[in-house]
């Protein structure tokens, strides 16, 4: 199946030890995200902070990606912390009982 055109260009930024993902975290972007994340994780320390406040949409592929990041870090002995998450990310994560992913989240709203 031909890859569908990207609905919107997503971004992964690293600033002050925090990896910020913005845009849509769906099947169209996951491969890009994965590569960017792997790069970002190379230089990451024991605690990796994710900022998901600017993630507008998340689907199965996106959720899977997050869980896979979590697994990756566990394997390394690091911890994943989600510093901030958008409402849609929070809703989705909570819907599937994955609250522990958000354990490090500060309450923003």
């Amino acid at each position, binding site marked *: *199946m*031909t890859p*569908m*055109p990207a*609905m919107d260009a997503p971004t992964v930024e690293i600033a002050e030890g925090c990896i910020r993902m913005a845009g849509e975290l*769906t*099947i169209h972007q*996951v*491969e890009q*995200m*994965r590569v960017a*994340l*792997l790069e970002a*994780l190379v230089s990451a320390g024991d605690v990796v902070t994710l900022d998901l406040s600017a993630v507008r949409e*998340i*689907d*199965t*592929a996106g*959720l*899977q*990606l997050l*869980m*896979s*990041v979590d*697994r*990756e870090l566990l*394997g390394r002995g690091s911890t994943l912390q989600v510093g901030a998450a958008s409402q849609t990310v929070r809703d*989705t994560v909570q*819907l*599937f*009982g*994955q609250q522990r992913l958000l354990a490090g989240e500060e309450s923003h709203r």
Partner: protein
Amino acid sequence: MNLDDVLPSFIAEATELLGEMEAGLLECARGTAAPETINLIFRTAHTIKGSAGLFGLDAIVSFVHGVETLLDRVRMGKVEIDARLAQTLLSARDHIAALVATAADSKEGASPELRARSAELLGALGAEAGRGASDIERSPLAGGVPTAIRGWHISVRFSPDVLMSGMDPVAFIRYLTTFGTITKAEVADGTLPPLTELEPLRCYIGFDITLETSEDRAKVESAFEFVRDDCTLIIEPLRPAVSEAAAPIAAVPESADSTQSRRPGAARTSSPSATNSSSSATTSAPAAASTDVSTIRVDATKLDFLITRIGELIIAAAGANMAARRAGATEVEESLSVLTSLVEEVRGGALQLRMVKIGATFSRFGRVVHDVSRELGKEIQLVVSGEDTELDKTLVERITDPLTHLVRNAIDHGIEPADVRSARGKPAAGTVRLNAFHDSGSIVIEVSDDGGGLKRERILAKAIERGLVDAERTLSDAEILALIFEPGFSTADKVTNLSGRGVGMDVVKRNITAMRGTVGIRSTEGEGTTVTVRLPLTLAIINGFQVGLGESVFVLPLESIDECVEFSAEAGHDFTSLRGEVLPFIQLRDLFQTRAPRARRQSIVVVKHAGQRAGLVVDALHGESQTVIKPLGKMFRQVECVSGSSILGTGEVALILDVGILVQQAVSRAARVSSREPASPLPLSA
């Protein structure tokens, strides 16, 4: 598979789906939509998107995706769909139709203008949705009698390719929350690899959900209907009821990725209370009894070919029958009669294939009425009846334009503005009625309105002004009303975009006459107007009745015949008494100037048309026969009383009589008899 060959299929399917979408959106605009309607609209969008994706039509895919996202939020209860949003969605639907049409025409994809329009519409939808959004989730158990809260354990595992198929499992689970509450959920991630090894487009996760809901199993299954083939689904009742225990246990097909065990106990599940019930596994194969009628698309030309062949089969069988009779071969005659009755059945079946219900055409007018009433600022209600009335496919296509014009006329000129209506004591909303039914071999379609009716004086004045009518002549009511079908006629005060230019009604009449139909009009001032369109039902093969006139054979459509009686009447009169009823008749041998001597005992065939009866006097009655209609050439179009010809088994030609014209002539002649005009032979051509 060459996709180009299949593209027409996509276009046809998309067109149908867009029709369903429109019907659903119209209901939303009127505020009469059921929750199932929202689902239907969502499904049509989803299907169109999926199919368009197969063909790489990315302009369609990306636009419909935006629409679908909004529709998803609507069906989850996050956005209310009010009249304004419905209107914007209707525009979006029209735009999808435009994009689909482009796909049909060119290979180049959507033009910049179309793409700009896509962006514009998506923006508008976003704004509308933002306006109507609420963060309050619809309470899944709201309203109604509190039923015993049951629920379901749902265990679902997806095939690794499910994401590639365009499905989003998370969306299905989210959908469950629209009719239930998820009290516990776990993600089965046993096969999920770490990031370095992750193939992002493969699905590694499954779900185990506890859903509290009063909905039944079928409702839960329906949430997964799009992925039935791509997942293994196990649904177990939360609290067993007696009826659940009796549910059949069906085999669960192995999914491609069967590393997960099927039994819920193996995967991490939630509460253990279900395990003591007789667990019933459901398959992911379609189990719900579908009330969909299965249909098949057929090329119209193939159908026509078939019907022509059957026509010739009928003629050939008739010929064989004659030959057998002449040869006195009774055995052959008997087997031929079996053959003939089979051929009749086949004929009936083939003709049925071409018959379609007029309901589909009527439902299109929902949109016409909606648009026109918005344009004119009049509130209009459309009432439809007789949707199951069937007519030939070719007629359906040709009747749509004339009917559209009649409906527009009714709304534009017929229905008065709201204040005038209230002053007259009528409800503010005008009613336009569409009705269809069968009547003696014809299909009758009525377009009525409860508006102001036609004003006789104005019509007459206009006609005199245009020189169509002499000022001194007295015209009957019906004749005055018939004037509006004259070319260039319009009494509209102002010409609107829709009608009033005077090019409408005469074109309508011409179109209908070309279909061998008639159009009439009835109206009461202040109350309303009804336009009646009459069209012949079947075109190719009819049940005929043969009559003899001298040496010639004529055919009458069996449906128009009421009875046959022996003929007796006083000479010089054009009417006879039939059980106390005055029956006007025509001596057909006078009409056709038959030279052969008159039979000693003539018969009168009583025929009916449009509620009127008349008698046709013939020399002999030959009986019923399957009649294959062959049209007469252009040269004979002027001959009014004959509507076609047919080939008999003997090879001779029999003319088919136009009952409608004959009845009209007989009736109007009888009307003039009272003014003492002498009976005269009717001319053959008018």
